[in-house]
Structure formats: C-alpha cells, structure tokens
C-alpha cells in the first residue's frame, strides 16, 4: 500500500519541476481519492464513463499536458492546500467538459440574433459561409472590417464587462452562458465599440478566447465539414493566444559539445544525476557508489568546465542542450 503524501514529498516534487509528479504513486493515489469522493451531483454529467475514466481524462486533458499539476504543486504550501486546489480543479474540469458544446450553440444563437434584427444589424460583406459573413450596425454602418488581431478582439470583449450566467453543478441542464439580452448587448457592443465590421466567427472567437470556452481537447472536423464551423476563422489565420515559445534553432550545441568533451565519464554521470535530482547529493553518491565528498569535487570540476565553455548568461541553456545531447535527443 502506498504511504500518504507528505509536505516533504511536495518539496521534493517541486525541486524536480513537477514532471515527476505525473508518475508519482502518492500523487496519483491522492488524485484518485479526490475523484472517488467527489459527490455525484457535482459531476453527474461525467459519471456515465465511470470514475476511472474521469480520473484518466482529468489527468490527460488538464493536469499533465498543460502543466496544471505542476502549477498546483508549486503553489500548495502543504498537502491540505494541494487537496483543496485539486478538488477545485476537478470541478473546473467537469464544468469545462460540460460546456464543450457551448461554442457551437453560441454560434447558432449569434447567427439567429443578427439575422432576426435587421433594424439593428445589417450584413456588411455577404459570404456563402455564415461564419465568414461580416456584420455592422444598421444605424451606423462601418466602412472597414476589424483587423484579425485576437488580442484586440479580447480587449473589446473584456471592455464590455459581460454578465455571464454561472453554472450550478447540481442543475440538470447546462446554462446558456449568456442570457438573450446579454448576448444582444455583446453583439451590439462589439460592433459599436470597434466601429468596424465583424464576422460571425470573430464575434464567437471573442467569447471563446476571453472566457476560455474552447474545449482543451477537441478533434478538428474534416475540411468538408467546415462550412459553418465555429473556429473556422481561427483556422484561417486569426492569431490565437498560444504562449510565446522559444525558437527551436540550437546555437548552443557547439558549447554543449565542448562541455561533453571536457567531462570525464563520472562527471557526465554526476551531471545526469544532478539534472534529475539537483538537491539530493547523498542519493547521488549512493547511486554512483562513491562518497559525497567525491560528488562535491566532481560538481566543482563540472562548474569549472562549464565556465570555460559558456558565458554566465548562456550556461543554463548550454546545460539543457548538453543533457538533451547526452540523452541522445540533440536538436
């Protein structure tokens, strides 16, 4: 039987950067308990799949890939705090699953709303695809269309301060997210504030991106089914809010190679161990069959070699490249 998770375990997992947590039996046991103990009425729409499936889905779609588990471990001061964070996250996951159909429904509602109010809204640029049709205000027609910048779109949606309907976990039916009046205020407000024409896809994208309504896992449909697919504009090039990432070109490889060439076999092993568990010198000594003093000496030698190969600002990056290279996955 797995022993209970302790605060020391949390500190250890934080040191290793959360990646180890995904395979940590104590963490998995705790998460399983949270799923098992969650009252039926809070997640009843997921129960058809069984609680094991709920745990698997939660882990796969929310906790591991986007790094939420690591984020929770970093933030929790103790096991009790981690449990509270995880229970809240499970509820958010369940709500997210429940509203996976919401964008599609909002698309239909917006389309109907715009067409049903010719005294308020008028077509600016007609397209055979409803999502690509541009709309403007009938009383103040725009002369330009909105540029495809997602950041700006979101800024306007935030500016409208929409009142969203809250989800009641026990409710049998899902909420509409926005009341009819509020949806109309949204469409009118966006066209008024931007003073430009907006496509139906852009109007929907504004809501989806601002309120995080996009399901975190959704298989994209076949191309021939895209006619009125809600995310068509996004697929056609509207910038999405992906986090900035680092470029993939590796300029640190020569320095990493130089470092590898200058290390002895034992120093290479020590570097690998430090990379996996940076603070655990005793464990590393046991693992490599030598004394802690030897590990300390080897660490100094690696540090000197690193200083010789790379400027201080580049050393972390060079180490990352070195480890990838040692593990056989150079860029």
């Amino acid at each position: 039987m797995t022993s209970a998770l302790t605060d020391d375990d949390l500190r250890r997992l934080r040191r290793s950067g959360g990646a180890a947590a995904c395979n940590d039996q104590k963490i998995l046991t705790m998460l399983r308990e949270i799923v098992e103990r969650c009252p039926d009425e809070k997640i009843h729409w997921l129960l058809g799949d069984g609680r094991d499936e709920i745990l698997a889905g939660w882990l796969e779609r929310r906790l591991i890939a986007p790094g939420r588990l690591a984020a929770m471990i970093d933030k929790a001061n103790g096991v009790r705090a981690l449990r509270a964070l995880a229970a809240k996250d499970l509820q958010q996951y369940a709500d997210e699953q429940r509203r996976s159909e919401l964008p599609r429904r909002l698309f239909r509602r917006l389309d109907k709303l715009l067409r049903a109010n010719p005294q308020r809204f008028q077509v600016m640029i007609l397209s055979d695809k409803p999502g690509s049709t541009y709309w403007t205000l009938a009383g103040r027609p725009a002369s330009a269309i909105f540029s495809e910048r997602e950041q700006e779109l979101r800024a306007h949606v935030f500016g409208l301060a929409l009142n969203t309907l809250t989800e009641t976990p026990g409710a049998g039916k899902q909420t509409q997210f926005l009341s009819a009046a509020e949806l109309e205020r949204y469409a009118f407000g966006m066209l008024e504030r931007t003073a430009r024409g907006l496509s139906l896809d852009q109007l929907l994208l504004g809501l989806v991106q601002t309120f995080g309504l996009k399901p975190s896992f959704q298989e994209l449909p076949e191309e021939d089914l895209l006619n009125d697919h809600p995310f068509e504009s996004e697929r056609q090039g509207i910038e999405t809010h992906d986090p900035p990432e680092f470029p993939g070109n590796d300029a640190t490889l020569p320095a990493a190679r130089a470092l590898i060439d200058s290390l002895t076999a034992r120093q290479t092993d020590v570097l690998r161990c430090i990379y996996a568990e940076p603070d655990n010198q005793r464990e590393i000594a046991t693992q490599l069959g030598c004394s802690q003093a030897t590990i300390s000496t080897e660490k100094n030698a690696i540090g000197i070699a690193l200083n010789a190969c790379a400027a201080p600002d580049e050393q972390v990056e060079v180490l990352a490249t070195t480890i990838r290279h040692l593990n056989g996955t150079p860029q």
Partner: protein
Amino acid sequence: MNEPTPYQPRSRERPTELDATWRAASNAHYALFAETRGTIAVPGEIWTILAEHATEEDQLLLAVITAPLNGETVAIIPLASESLYATEWDLAIPSAVLGYEVIAQVKLAGTVASAQLDQRLSSLPPHVMGELEELAHAAEQGASIPPAHLSVGPWVLSEADQRLQIRAATAQVLRRYMNPAYQDPSREWLSFGSILLRHSRAIGVELDTLIEPEWARIAHDELDLFERVPARKLAALLQKLQVKWNERVRDSLYKLVLDRYNPTEALQGSALARRQGKRTPKAKRSKAPLERRERAAEEYVTAVENGLSEQ
C-alpha cells in the same frame, strides 16, 4: 517632475534554443554553483514565497526576484497562472520556464522579507528577464502604456473591464505576502493621455491621425493643454474618440492641466532674459502659483464640458 531615466536593456537578443528542460537545467546550474554562491536569491530567479503568518492551508506565492534590496528584503514581481486575465501590464512567461504558462504582474510588484523566501523553482532566461525589466521600468516611470514590442496581454480599453477588478482583488490578497510598490495598481487609468490612447485603440484609429502634430505629447501627459489646445478642439477630439465624460475623465483632465499649466508670460520673460544676454537660470522654471493653476484647470475643464454639450 523628474526626468524619466532612460531604460538600458540588459539583453534584447533572444537565445536560439530553449525548451521545456529549462527549469531542470536552471536547477542543475544552481546546484552546481550552490556552494560558491551561497543561498542568497539573485535577480531573475523564481521562488515560492510564504505568507507572513503562513499555515499549511495557505498557498505559496510564486514570484520573480528583481532586486535584493538589502540583507533582509528583496523586491519581487508576483507570478500568476491565470494568464486568461493578462492585461497590457502582465508579461507572458514562456511555459518552458516553469513547465506551465504564467504571467508576471508588474503592477503588483512589491517587497518581501528574505525570510519569506521558501524554495527556488527556476530562473528566467536572460531575454525574458530583459523584457520584464523593461516593462517594470515603464511602470515605475508612470508610463500610461507599456512598450509596444513585449509579450503582454490585451489592453484594458474600458474601466468596466473585469481584469481591473481582478487586479485590485489580487493586490488585496497579496498584502498577506508583501509590501506593495504601488498603492493603486490601476493608476494608469487616472492618466488623461492613457484614456485618449486607449479609446483611439478601441475604435481602431491611431491617435496621431486625429490630432495636430504639435499635440503629439498629449498621449504622454506632457502637453500644456491650456496654452496649446483650445477647449472646443479637445471636446471635438473626445467626441471622435467616443470618450464618455465622467468623473474619471474630468479628474484626469483637471490634474493634467494643473500639472502642466505654464502661462505664456513666463515663457516670454525667460526668452526676453535670454535675448538680453542674461544667464538662463540652471534650475527648472518654477510653475505658476497653485491658486492660479487651479483656476486655469477649473476654467479649462468647464470649457471642455461646455464644448461637449454644444456638440
């Protein structure tokens, strides 16, 4: 008012390669040099921070160290994982740094006691730290909008934006952890130049295209409106920008005129002195008396208000 200090970026070049191993590599680097560098936190490192009277149920605050102020205090910028609510004053930190996406909230910066630093998690790559310093510097200088090229969230275009409320609420929560550097984290909303810029952004028109070239400094709150911009023209500009006249707009305009009003005769006096070969005083020209500036501000604001109602 002090001259803004020019910003000196540490490094603006992006490194060529980094990925999700950054956090592990950063900690390995720390372990390699821990014995020689001691245990002090250095700028760019990310630490967890304990609340001042922490309990097991508390959450830890994640923050970037920006400066060790003395042996007992460090300056920090808090990190938040709710990147959905990022504003233009929140820098997106690449997910490689911690293993998940976070934002650095420069408007919520502050100081904590060194004893509150709990555990080192990672460090910012030099180019990201450079961007963060640039954003923080702009905030410290009281800029109404941040530099354009940084990876920040969407602009706040309206006072009703829920992100301002979230920022204010977060600032309250953070008082358990730190002494805030900004008493009002939404202060940029009190600037008249910022209001004009945000509304021009909202309607998708460059402010420069709506104003006369000599008014360019209006966006930075550096123009003497009373002397340079007729009230009816400003009223027309506000209308074009769809700025709704409310207490905040009125107060910010009043404050701007009060701060910047410098009557023409003072300029003439100084110019005359120079023409007569007298030395220009080294000290900055003193402002008109407060009472006179207050009168000018009141008069100007009322004239703009009247201009708006006529239009």
